[in-house]
């Protein structure tokens, strides 16, 4: 059965991208272990508001692990200590009474802090804009069953396409690399027949944009895949490397 616990929080507070931030200590009591981590932060913010203090700013929207809006570096792990979930899916039953929990924003040169725990992930949109699509106009598509795709291939493409664009891979990487994010999208299209025509151009354009935006290089440490809330596989990165080399050889 659920019970309640008290937790001590060390939370990063920072007014804006150019301002200096610092850790502040808070305490939240009587948190139901059935509550989600973000509901616990909602309780903290309610307390702060009651005291006339500004609430801790953090991104969250769907609260069911799919929109990719929530972030948070909790006790040294993007999306907290439990593998394969986002912060909004983390529940307080994973913590013990009187635990001290450290909460930080994603830390990466490409993701400047907006306020407190909220960061700017616009760079991810820019990478997608560089080539993360099939170029055709609405209305021009052939019948959906015109091109059979093997179930195995469709399933692997689906696994790649599951990326929620949260940025945990970048936050987990000591180099701040966005390779897993880029690789997941390039893989999805490289696997599917619809993506073939622009295959080489897409890999080149997305990698180029990633480099331009200040993301670091990939040194194959695998931290990204280990911390990915959707368990995106490192094989995506291997595939991106192959795609990129093939594209370069073709040049």
């Amino acid at each position, binding site marked *: 059965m659920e019970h309640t616990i008290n937790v001590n929080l060390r939370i990063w507070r920072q007014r804006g991208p150019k301002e200096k931030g610092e850790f502040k200590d808070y305490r939240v009591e009587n948190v139901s272990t059935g509550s*989600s981590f973000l*509901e616990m932060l909602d309780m903290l913010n309610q307390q702060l*508001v009651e005291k006339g203090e500004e609430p801790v700013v953090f991104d969250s929207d769907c609260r069911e692990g799919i929109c990719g809006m929530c972030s948070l570096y909790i006790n040294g792990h993007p999306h907290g200590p439990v593998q394969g979930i986002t912060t909004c899916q983390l529940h307080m039953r994973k913590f013990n009474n009187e635990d001290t929990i450290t909460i930080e924003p994603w830390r990466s040169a490409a993701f400047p802090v907006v306020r407190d725990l909220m960061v700017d992930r616009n760079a991810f949109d820019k990478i997608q804009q560089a080539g993360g*699509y099939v170029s055709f106009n609405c209305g021009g598509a052939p019948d959906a069953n015109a091109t*059979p795709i093997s179930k195995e291939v469709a399933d692997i493409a689906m696994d790649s396409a599951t990326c929620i664009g949260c940025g945990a891979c970048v936050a987990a990487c000591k180099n701040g690399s966005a390779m897993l994010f880029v690789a997941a999208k390039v893989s*999805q299209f490289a696997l599917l027949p619809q993506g073939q025509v622009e295959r080489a151009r897409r890999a080149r354009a997305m990698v180029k944009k990633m480099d331009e935006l200040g993301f670091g290089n990939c040194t194959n440490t695998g931290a990204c895949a280990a911390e990915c809330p959707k368990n995106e596989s490192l094989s995506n990165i291997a595939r991106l490397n192959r795609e990129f080399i093939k594209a370069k050889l073709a040049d």
Partner: protein
Amino acid sequence: MADIKNLEGMIDSTPIMKDYADIESSALPEYQIDSKIPEGPLAQKWTNYKAHQKLVNPANKRNLDIIVVGTGLAGASAASTLGELGFNVLNFCIQDSPRRAHSIAAQGGINAAKDYQNDGDSVYRLFYDTVKGGDFRSREANVYRLAEVANNIIDQCVQQGVPFAREYGGLLANRSFGGAQVSRTFYAKGQTGQQLLLGAYASLNRQIQKGTVKSFNRREMLDLVIIDGRARGIIVRNLVTGELERYAAHAVVLATGGYGRTFFLSTNAMGCNGSAAIQAFRRGAYLSNLAFTQIHPTCIPVHGEDQSKLTLMSESLRNDGRIWVPKKKEDAEAIRAGKKKPTDIPDEDRDFYLERRYPAFGNLCPRDIASRAAKERCDAGYGVGTGNAVYLDFKYAINRLGEDVVRDRYGNLFDMYQMISDDNPYETPMMIFPASHYTMGGIWVDYELQTSIKGLFAIGECNFSDHGANRLGASALMQGLADGYFVLPYTMQNYLSDQIKVKHPGTDDPEFDKVEKEVRDRINRLMNIKGTKSPDQIHKRLGHVMWDLVGMGRTLQSLVKAIAEVEEVRKEFYTDLRIVGSADDLNTELEKALRLEDFLVMAKMMAIDALNRNESCGAHFREEYQTADGEAARNDKDYMYVSCWKYTGDNEKPVLLKEPLNYQEIKVQTRNYKS
């Protein structure tokens, strides 16, 4: 009418309604509703419309600006398609990226009448199921068009690289959803909404790269600007800087989603709101059928007062899960007291109440019916968990198919359930209960998806058009994408064709000054209340009022009480609200307060609409109006119309206009899922 069991049904609410609506006014000519349904046989209407509508030539498209508010399935598909056509599109969202709109969370699937399964599907059958599912309260011509273009959506999405589920032979797989006897639902695991939205987002990104679409993130629309009777722009608040910004265009499209969070707890995302609809309402757009709010039957039950949102378990689970409660009250009591486990109850003591009451559709009956049946059992004392929960059991599917097959079909949903509830659904049945999920009602639009304000269009969940009194599963994605990819890009041109010579409505028009000042004044008013309650505290109170009194079962008394109680909450809002921080800065509390102020208007309008509708239909269940066996008793004679509410002032009575519903090619009958 003889089988109406509750004579309270005879209570006439007209005298009470007089306080809220001047029904007589609808006779005035300026209040006549023109839905612009094209002439001709139903199956030819859309073809004829497209053949004769006015278009805008490519050179002129470049000179026309269109604002699209929202980046969900409807907004992103409309923005990208309008961009592809060559218009200049300004696209806004409140999230940090267009990819995060709440369409992303749709799980189960998208309907289309491809008939790939050879099981007797057709455009007519999809149309018929949708109208019947909506309990004959949707506009026939719109629904037929929806069913017609649905097939194109699947083609479009496959070409975008959406990895739909496939059979071993490489062709697309389908599954069944509620309210249909065919398998017409396309899906991508339990993440269909995500994959479709990422498809639309990809098309949108292509246009952003080309420069036809400009994307504005973390911006919230706070008002609509109307110049000479036409929608010409919006005022938005930059959520990062707190600054107010102006944007002008030749037309404005709202794709801002539903108002399900009026109930506070819902399956909607934290940021979902009904504010754009209320802004449009106050500027002259009609709001329609607001009483039709969908309470989804399979959500994870509420756990406590500190909860911020509820989680949906996809309707697809009802393909293989069986819903039950104990047959014996003492078993239900023992389970609630923790003395018995569900697995202790033998099959003969389980009441599979959907299969018992609706043998033809069983566990796959439509959402409104499944939700109400769950409430009926819980109210009668058979609920489990806190008393407000029923079981969704996979024991039978696991015995029949094996655990591996069940894991393959629903693994991610089972994991999600286990994460939240700490129970293993492979071993013990899931507990579920209905929760606010989707709103069928919304901004009134005509056949062209234009509102009652010229140049203002509304698409996707935020309009009222296609789902009548109840939406079928896997139809929301269909409607959002149909509107955005295949309907609006045509119909808008019929409006824009005479705008090509109109001077670009710049943001220096005095009307922009005026509206921006009104927005600023409104923000200052709220900032200066300086009370003691946070927006969330007040919103929770509103949520309780709405769930208890305007929820799954409504009565004349509950609705009258709701209107009074919403007024009380409103009073508390205006006297005791506290917003910390400053207005000219990032301020999440101010964002919540502004949305809440609009939810308060929406709440009252929902109750008024429900009070006006003296019948039960679809998701709108007035307890006075039910048949002897507890089914909804519709009143086609008096209520076969779309209610259209016209704003007349903050403290004035809204005026009710009626758009009659005429069914040409469908026989209106009592909805039957029993045989």
